[in-house]
């Protein structure tokens, strides 16, 4: 624990030094970079020890404020979530020193470095706090540091608006958390997590209320549908390295909160678990559909965060079902998938945002329709982006595949569980759909940004970025590959976390996940064979071409039309058109079809269709009762169907005793 705090202090001191050295921006950046890197390396020791099975002593600060002493400690769950903070967060911070160098907001750059350092430290404290007040205080520091980083480019009005929406959302979440801990603390000795957990079995009906309110409160941070309304705007408005840490790491604290709540409160009721599963399905499918309709690179990536939170919730829901129906296997597998995806998403999403930042710096644009052909001009950035894309789509042999594989197994074993949990099997179909749609979406992004002709002079003039840009990205890409090819490195420690969440001893969890851990070696074998086949076929192809000798270069074949231009390429919107046309009504996508262009825009349904109208609707509530009498035969019949279905459910639920 002290090693961790020492490391975090170094990070914080580096940030402070950056502000002090503000007059020499290069020095400030270097100090911040070195301090963050070194501090994170030192801090990484403690969580790795805990995940290896060690028990570290907790740190208690005696205080006079009510609510008991402030305790900080590391268990497996905290340690696991610290890994992405220290890996992806540090990579993003180091990338930021290059990314912000020479910006118009020159004066505020060192303050941004300090904000980053504060954010990293606050993340570390949120994840280790074991008392409510310490937790909420760190939570608030984290939220505010995030806010100041998001509004870094506050000259632009849309940035200010995005920041404001973010601020309101995060405080609404905090308010809910205050309610949760307040209600709970009433029944407990004090507000430390230990006494809260002690009070949990006697909560009665409050148990479910706390779980639900907590899910909503933490959900506002995690950003699942329909609480995601602030997320795409805030993540797109922030500087790219901030987007990387917000999307990759900060939203995971919401997931951490839900998991912590489960650990403290114990097994949830089945309807709560099914609800989480349903939220996962909605977030996954809708998130990727919104991303498909998007043609702003960073906003698209932000919507993919909604999708990936959905995948995490699918695993979490399966695990919670395992708790509800007392099936340790299901619980362990589900939570294993969820926490693995937390790590993997942090790695590949940060990587993708960093690459988007490089593209933005090189071309000045993040509009898909204005890019193109960057693969030849920025080969390293392209390589990093394609690795991240393959990982987020869940293709072997990268890390995204590993966690989706575990989530699939969890859903399938739920199917064979011979309990009502078996309905979770249909979540697997949703996961398959999400994977397929994500593939289409990233094919669109890769194609329109990196392949084909450059669509604008800016894209034509793009040059590869420097090592300060691709260095941190390379580390993340390597991590994606390592986890994908050697999954046991991640699965081994993750089993410890899953065991803690499922409430089974480590040995039992290890025994239950034995098949998955053995399979990890088969995955490595598959990756090796795949790479070998690619190499052999590539060599054979080169050899065949050399022997034939007749290799020519020519224009792209356009079915006889001789004068093709960059404007004739398939645009990103057109690429996604078949799927948008199909799912548009479901996801609320607005299509603009004019003679000179075709574009699609997702509507921020939760904000524009729910929150704003909800306000207006409450004012006109009385006037809105009448439209029930719509006069449509189909509608009346629908009422009958709904009533019949409700009655059937009532009969089924009451077991025939009305």
């Amino acid at each position, binding site marked *: 624990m002290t090693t961790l705090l020492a490391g975090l202090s170094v990070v914080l001191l580096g940030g402070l030094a950056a502000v002090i050295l503000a007059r020499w921006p290069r020095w400030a950046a270097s100090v911040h970079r070195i301090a963050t890197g070194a501090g994170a390396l030192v801090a990484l020791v403690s969580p790795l020890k805990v995940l290896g099975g060690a028990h570290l002593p907790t740190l208690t600060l005696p205080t006079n404020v009510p609510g008991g002493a402030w305790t900080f400690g590391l268990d497996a769950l905290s340690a696991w979530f610290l890994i992405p903070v220290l890996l992806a967060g540090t990579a993003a911070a180091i990338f930021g020193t290059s990314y912000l160098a020479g910006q118009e907001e020159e004066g505020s750059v060192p303050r941004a470095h300090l904000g980053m350092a504060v954010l990293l430290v606050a993340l570390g404290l949120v994840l280790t706090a074991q008392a409510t007040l310490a937790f909420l205080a760190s939570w608030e520091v984290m939220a505010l540091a995030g806010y100041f980083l998001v509004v870094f480019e506050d000259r632009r009005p849309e940035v200010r608006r995005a920041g404001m929406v973010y601020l309101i959302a995060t405080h609404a979440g905090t308010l809910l958390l205050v309610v949760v801990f307040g209600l709970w603390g009433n029944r407990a000795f004090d507000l430390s997590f230990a006494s809260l957990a002690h009070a949990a079995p006697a909560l009665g009906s409050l148990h479910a209320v706390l779980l639900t309110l907590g899910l909503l409160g933490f959900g506002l941070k995690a950003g699942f549908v329909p609480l995601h309304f602030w997320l795409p705007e805030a993540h797109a408005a922030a500087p790219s390295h901030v987007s990387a840490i917000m999307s990759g790491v900060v939203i995971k604290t919401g997931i951490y909160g839900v998991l912590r709540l489960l650990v403290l409160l114990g097994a949830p009721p089945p309807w709560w678990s099914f609800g989480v599963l349903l939220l996962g399905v909605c977030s996954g499918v809708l998130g990727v559909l919104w991303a498909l309709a998007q043609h702003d690179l960073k906003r698209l990536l932000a919507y993919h965060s909604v999708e990936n939170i959905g995948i995490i919730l699918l695993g979490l829901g399966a695990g919670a079902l395992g708790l509800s129906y007392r099936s340790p296997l299901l619980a362990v597998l589900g939570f294993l998938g969820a926490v693995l995806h937390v790590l993997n998403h942090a790695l590949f999403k940060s990587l993708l945002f960093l690459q988007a930042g490089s593209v933005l710096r090189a071309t000045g644009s993040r509009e898909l329709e204005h890019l193109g052909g960057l*693969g*030849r001009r920025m080969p390293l950035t392209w390589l990093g982006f*394609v690795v991240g894309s*393959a990982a987020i*789509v869940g*293709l*072997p042999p990268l890390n995204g*595949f590993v966690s*989706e*594989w575990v989530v*699939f*197994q969890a859903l*399938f074993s739920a199917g*064979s569980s*011979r309990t009502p949990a*078996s*309905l979770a*099997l249909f979540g697997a*179909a*949703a996961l*398959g*759909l999400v*994977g*397929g*749609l994500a*593939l*289409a979406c990233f*094919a*669109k992004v890769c*194609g329109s940004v990196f*392949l*084909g002709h450059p669509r604008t002079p800016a894209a034509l003039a793009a040059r590869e970025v420097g090592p300060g840009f691709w260095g941190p990205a390379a580390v993340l890409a390597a991590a994606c590959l390592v986890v994908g090819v050697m999954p046991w490195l991640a699965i081994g420690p993750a089993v410890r976390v899953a065991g803690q969440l499922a409430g089974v001893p480590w040995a039992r969890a290890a025994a239950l996940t034995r098949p*998955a851990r053995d*399979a990890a070696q088969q*995955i490595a*074998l*598959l990756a090796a*064979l*795949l790479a070998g*086949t*690619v190499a052999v*076929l590539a060599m054979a*192809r080169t050899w*065949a*071409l050399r022997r*034939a000798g*007749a*290799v*020519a*270069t*020519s224009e*792209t074949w*356009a079915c006889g039309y001789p004068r*093709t231009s960059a404007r004739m390429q*398939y645009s990103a919107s*057109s*690429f996604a058109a*078949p*799927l948008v046309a*199909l799912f548009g009504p479901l996801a609320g996508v607005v299509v603009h079809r004019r003679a000179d262009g075709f574009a699609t825009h997702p509507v921020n349904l939760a904000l524009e269709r729910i929150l704003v109208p909800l306000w207006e609707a409450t004012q006109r509530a009385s006037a809105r009762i009448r439209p029930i009498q719509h006069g449509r035969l189909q509608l009346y019949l629908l009422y009958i169907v709904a009533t019949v279905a409700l009655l059937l459910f009532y009969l089924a639920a009451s077991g025939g005793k009305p």
Partner: protein
Amino acid sequence: MTSWLCFGLALVLAPLLPGVAQRTKSWLTGRRGPPVLQLYWDLARLWRKGAVFSSVAGASFRLGPVVFAASGVAAAMLLPFANNPALIRFPGDFVAFAGVLALGRFALVLAALDTGSSFEGMGASREAAFGSLSEPVLVLCFAALALASQELSLSGMLGPALPSWWAAGPALAMVGAGVFLVTLAETGRVPVDDPATHLELTMIHEVMVLDHSGPDFALIHYAAALKLTLLGTLLAGVLVPAGQAAAVVRIAGWLGGLLALAVAIGVVESVMARLRLARVPQLLTSAAVLPGFAIILLLSRAA
């Protein structure tokens, strides 16, 4: 040993299936048609030829076909042929099977987009769209099989643990129908795509590989045939009850199943027209309902 033999057989015999389908089609429409071995000659000819590369295309264009073919080979290693255990098998390997096939699709789509051609972009867009819809169907089929056999690996699902036709006939039939429709969609066959069309605007798979030539084109053709063989093997595994029979019998059953699939594709292509593109999602939705209903049946029986 038998697993290796079957793996080799699948790789060698793959180009035969499109030939059989074509021959059936020709025969049913009163023509003689090309020889059954035509694809082998085509592949040999393409492999010996040179190639023309677009000045726009880069490494993605050149690597695409290689990865596509390699993904087919890797998927073949994950599949149990003729009820023999697969070369690589582990719980949840069906995810890897679908993932490896998706990797091939991703590589081919990127290769198509690398040319900057609007035609190829169009083909790639359709391939990605329909591929994303056939993925959940495939997952639902695997889910039904997993439920019926209580196994989590392909070798287990299609092995002796799969219940007999007598015990779970309707469910198996619906899963089989689902796999068949996925096969048609994924391998670019009527009614989703027409391999024999001449109009670029109506093509999916063929227009996506418009710019490839020489050995690259040979790799794509081979890998497409291999994909058909793999999905056909899956179908045969579901529909041909082999159980504990001798290895020779099982291999004969598997090859017979593949042959029947090729003939069935030929029949479908001669009696049906292509669907309008807007109707393809509807076909795939219906395809999803079949294994979905199978799952409901299996679940209600288990409960």
